[in-house]
């Protein structure tokens, strides 16, 4: 390793350390090799690259493995009730529009118990960046089926294979009105940095779905191997958006598109409300 790359590397890890909450006992609750850690470092790099101050970031989350993230990062943390974090986050953002609100959620948190709050946050197009870490299972409670567990897949509550259909969070968010929708995986760490950065910069509701590995439960129950094997699987199944558009439906079976899937300019909720306030106050 040359001195130049060594320096760069140590610089990078000190950036990560700089954003970890002081006094917070490590290790985290996460299993070794869990994708949550990869997403956390991507968020740190995105916030750092954007030059945001720690004080202007509020990180909200619900309940689940991924939702523990705000505990570890040196931002204001709002660790809420199961599925409700986007409603709490809406209160924060609407009360203090100058703050950057990042919401960390999982597939069970956002799409099952929190489904109602999820679609309405999308519909309002409120300027919140939701990062949905999708591992296709409930990790914290020990491997139960979630709304993104694929049909036929195994979990502790689908011991004979899942009889249900699964949600595509990105299609759901777009249909519900989110103005920025992207998908990436924990294998594509560099892409994840860029996407999260774009999502935070985007004015309006942004959803970043990160396909992640729960090797402890989903991987084990579905014989997918360890964390590395699961990351390899993501690598093999992810198709860049442009390429996916040229592929037939048949060719896309078992695969998924990654990249910024949808972005549009749309008025943002807090901005519109502020113009109402200005009008009402001015008209007095």
């Amino acid at each position, binding site marked *: 390793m040359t001195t130049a790359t060594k320096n760069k590397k140590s610089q990078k890890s000190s950036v990560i350390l700089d954003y970890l*909450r002081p*006094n*917070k*006992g490590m290790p985290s609750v996460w299993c070794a090799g869990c994708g949550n850690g990869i997403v956390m470092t991507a968020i740190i790099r995105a916030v750092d690259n954007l030059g945001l101050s*720690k*004080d*202007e970031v*509020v990180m*909200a989350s619900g309940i689940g493995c991924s939702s523990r993230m*705000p*505990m570890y990062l*040196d*931002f*204001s*943390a*709002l*660790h*809420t*009730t199961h599925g*409700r974090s986007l*409603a*709490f*986050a*809406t*209160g*924060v*953002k*609407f*009360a*203090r529009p*100058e*703050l950057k609100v990042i919401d960390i959620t999982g597939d069970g948190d956002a799409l099952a118990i929190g489904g*109602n*709050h999820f*679609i*309405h946050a999308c519909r309002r197009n409120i300027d919140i960046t939701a990062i949905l870490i999708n591992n296709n299972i409930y990790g914290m409670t020990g491997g139960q089926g979630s709304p993104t567990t694929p049909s036929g897949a195994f979990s502790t509550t689908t011991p004979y294979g899942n009889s249900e259909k699964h949600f595509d969070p990105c299609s759901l968010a777009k249909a519900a009105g989110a103005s920025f929708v992207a998908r990436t995986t924990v294998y594509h760490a560099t892409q994840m940095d860029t996407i999260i950065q774009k999502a935070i910069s985007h004015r309006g509701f942004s959803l970043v779905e990160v396909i992640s590995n729960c090797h402890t439960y989903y991987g084990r129950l579905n014989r997918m191997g360890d964390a590395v094997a699961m990351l390899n699987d993501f690598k093999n199944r992810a198709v860049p958006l442009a390429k996916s558009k040229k592929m037939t439906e048949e060719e896309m079976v078992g695969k998924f598109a990654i990249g910024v899937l949808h972005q549009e300019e749309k008025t943002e909720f807090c901005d519109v*409300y502020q113009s*109402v*306030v200005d009008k*009402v*106050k001015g008209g*007095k």
Partner: protein
Amino acid sequence: MADKERVLVMGNQACVLGAIYAGLRFFAGYPITPSTEVAEGCARELPKIGGRFIQMEDEIGSIAAVIGASVSGLKAMTATSGPGYSLMIENLGYAYMTETPLVVINVQRGGPSTGLPTKVSQSDTMQAKWGPHGDYTAITVAPSTIGETVTEVIRAFNLAERFRTPVTVLLDEVLGHSRQIITLPEPGEIEIFDRVKPTCSPEEFEAFAMTPNMVSPMPAYGEGYRYVCTGLTHDTKGFTTNKSEEIAPKMYKLRHKIIDYQDEIHKMRAEKMDDAEVAFISYGSVARAALQATDIVRKAGYKVGALQLQTIWPFPDEKLREMCGKCRAVVVAELNMGQIVHEVRRALPPDIEVHELQRYDGEILTPMQLVNKLEEVL
């Protein structure tokens, strides 16, 4: 303005006037009969003062947004009725645990379930105390007139800010929907309490620090104090804990920051109690009927008085004992199948007879019903 402002308003609108007087800047809610006029009033009035109104997707989201706004530094409120209050219970528990000041107005209707949307009831009295699971101490106030609705809502905000806790205001359908001409308090006439903010450096700051009065100073998000706010049981810094030596102090704080200072919270209106041998005990709109009934039987020469509980929770045991010291009997009147009467029985010495008068058919108790009940007692 020489004369005080006089306005004709319904109880639900009085909630809005009181809340704005107290400093309300954020309302999130969901339509529900018979409380909807509170939300409508906030939607109209808040933008005029630079405040914010949002109609959320349900009551769970409404109180969640209110908590988000409160931790961000705004005085925040929601309003609902029984079914919506039931939905709010989950995050109300979060607010107790995270010590987040906020006000919930519950304009009570008949229950259980969707019950009687347009009929009066006082059957959420115990729910206001024991709604969420777990141990905590609730503060609940209850006005009985439109004018008092303004002042009790102001008091609810002051208590929420003083004690860093949610406060429930119990109205009922009759109070929410009846109209009266009232006199508004002038600016500065009623003292407004704002939450105590930290003065230490962010490095020294502990979000849930034990202080002499057990209430921790509370910064707003974005003010440089970055901390963890979680519904999981936490230590003084806000970090989750499973250690019994950290769990017990947190639980102690939740309870004792309130009950050790309950004299500041108790409020009771006493009418003709000085020589009363028998007393009506009531709250909310029933208290008005009790006052009239008292006048009627006093004219007939009986020594009867009326006590109106303006603070419901924590229950004013001692104050009630004191007020009823000369009574041989009390009549507890409420619009439910008997809720506060059990508290009264618990609080009063056994030599005072406790009689109960209840109505749970969606109608109010009339003064004559109270008078008739007294005939049994006297």
